């Protein structure tokens, strides 16, 4: 028998860590979603679809700016020392993914605004007609469009990966000590973005491309999840115990049913039928993917905080 008793009972730390509530998973989901949307929008632009009137790529920048701002608001709400947030921008800490993230986000906004200027939304154009001329000049040079597309894809990749790397560098929580988290969150962000864009796409052609892409991302996600567990299960006892939180422990039901089942496997199946024209494209599968994407962040953030190097921690605290 091994029994530990402790006299400490700090708020949010004991009995089990719970410093991050809904704000962080919501932000991580939105960060991934926007990353995916930037990559998809950039891909469409690179494919020369800027000439098509109905290309969804023109709706994505304005939607990204609005949704990302909501995510930033969630992030701000999480801060405990809110009015010192500007301290993020008086320094750059190379070992801190959060510092990287702060600077990446600062670059993401201008990149989205440049993308937006390629086709200024009507409601903005009505107020600032001069933007139309800028837009015309930008569209006159294919290299400008290519440059904006490449910038959005690069920053999208960085934004999507950083949300996962952020967790994986937090030494104290064994569940997060996996370098594949960066790839997992990026793949999940791409999958969520493909599902989201599918829901707003105006042409059957686009819906078809996005469904195929989403199936690719979902398959990739399942492979990365497998790699994630192989990594933890072959590591220390603490890491194995952390993996068990998701595999068989208190988070197993929501993980298997919602994240893997409803979020990945079932939409993969539905979308495969749609690609083969056996059923019509509907919003059912994309909604499932989005629900799975947000719950993936919730499960990882909550279970990660629950995991501990001392595998008896859940018992003694």
């Amino acid at each position, binding site marked *: 028998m091994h029994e530990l008793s402790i006299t400490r009972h700090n708020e949010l730390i004991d009995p089990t860590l719970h410093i991050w509530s809904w704000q962080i998973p919501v932000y991580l989901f939105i960060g991934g979603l926007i990353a995916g949307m930037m990559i998809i929008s950039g891909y469409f632009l690179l494919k020369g679809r800027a000439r098509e009137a109905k290309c969804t790529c023109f709706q994505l920048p304005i939607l990204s700016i609005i949704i990302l701002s909501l995510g930033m608001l969630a992030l701000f709400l999480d801060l405990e020392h809110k009015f010192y947030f500007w301290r993020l921008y008086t320094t750059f800490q190379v070992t801190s993914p959060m510092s990287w993230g702060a600077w990446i986000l600062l670059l993401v906004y201008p990149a989205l605004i440049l993308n937006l200027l390629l086709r200024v939304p009507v409601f903005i154009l009505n107020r600032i007609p001069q933007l139309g001329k800028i837009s015309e000049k930008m569209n006159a040079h294919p290299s400008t469009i290519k440059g904006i597309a490449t910038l959005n894809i690069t920053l999208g990749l960085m934004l999507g990966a950083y949300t996962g790397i952020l967790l994986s*560098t937090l030494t104290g929580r064994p569940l997060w000590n996996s370098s594949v988290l960066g790839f997992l969150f990026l793949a999940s962000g791409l999958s969520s973005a493909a599902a989201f864009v599918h829901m707003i796409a105006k042409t059957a052609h686009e819906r078809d491309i996005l469904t195929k892409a989403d199936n690719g991302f979902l398959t990739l996600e399942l492979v990365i999840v497998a790699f994630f567990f192989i990594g933890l299960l072959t590591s220390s006892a603490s890491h194995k115990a952390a993996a068990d939180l998701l595999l068989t422990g208190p988070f197993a039901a929501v993980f298997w049913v919602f994240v893997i089942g409803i979020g990945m496997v079932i939409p993969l199946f539905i979308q495969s039928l749609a690609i083969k024209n056996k059923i019509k494209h509907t919003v059912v599968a994309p909604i499932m993917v989005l629900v799975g994407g947000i719950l993936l962040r919730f499960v990882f953030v909550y279970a990660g905080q629950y995991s501990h190097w001392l595998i008896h921690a859940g018992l003694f605290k």
Partner: protein
Amino acid sequence: MAKFGMVIDTTKCVGCMDCVVACKTENNVPEGFNRAWIVEDVMGKYPDLHMEIRSERCNHCEEAPCVDVCPTGASHYSDIGEVVLIDHDECIGCKACIAACPYDARFIHPDGYADKCDFCFHRTSKGKNPACVDVCPTHSIHFGDLDDPDSEVSKLLKSRKYHVRIPEAGTKPKIFYLT
């Protein structure tokens, strides 16, 4: 360059919590929070039991994950003694340091910034002992310069068996427990 560390004799500690109380008084630690705490670690099966009592606090790790992940540099090593400190005016309260610490040594102060043991830096930077060391009735807590081979802590580590908390996390703690 000095490297401050602590050596705690678990064979002398009786778990009286004088260190815990002294810490709260010395540092005005807010109600409901602790910078130092006592752990009772019992192993075996009755009647063959072994108990170790430990006075625990921030380990002031040489490779502190809380310093690495801090996005603003608020968590840093002091010039004197390589103590892990938090600059309150730089802390944004993101809590990454709390998640990064394997020892759960940190908490959010009611004023919004991350807080924890600072080895009573206001005392130790002037050559005094931390409050917990001076009040310990069994003299089980020792404080000093680990880089100085003639310091009391260095001598104890040379002559006695010891362990550190969760060495597998790779943080190189500077609090050593004599057994």
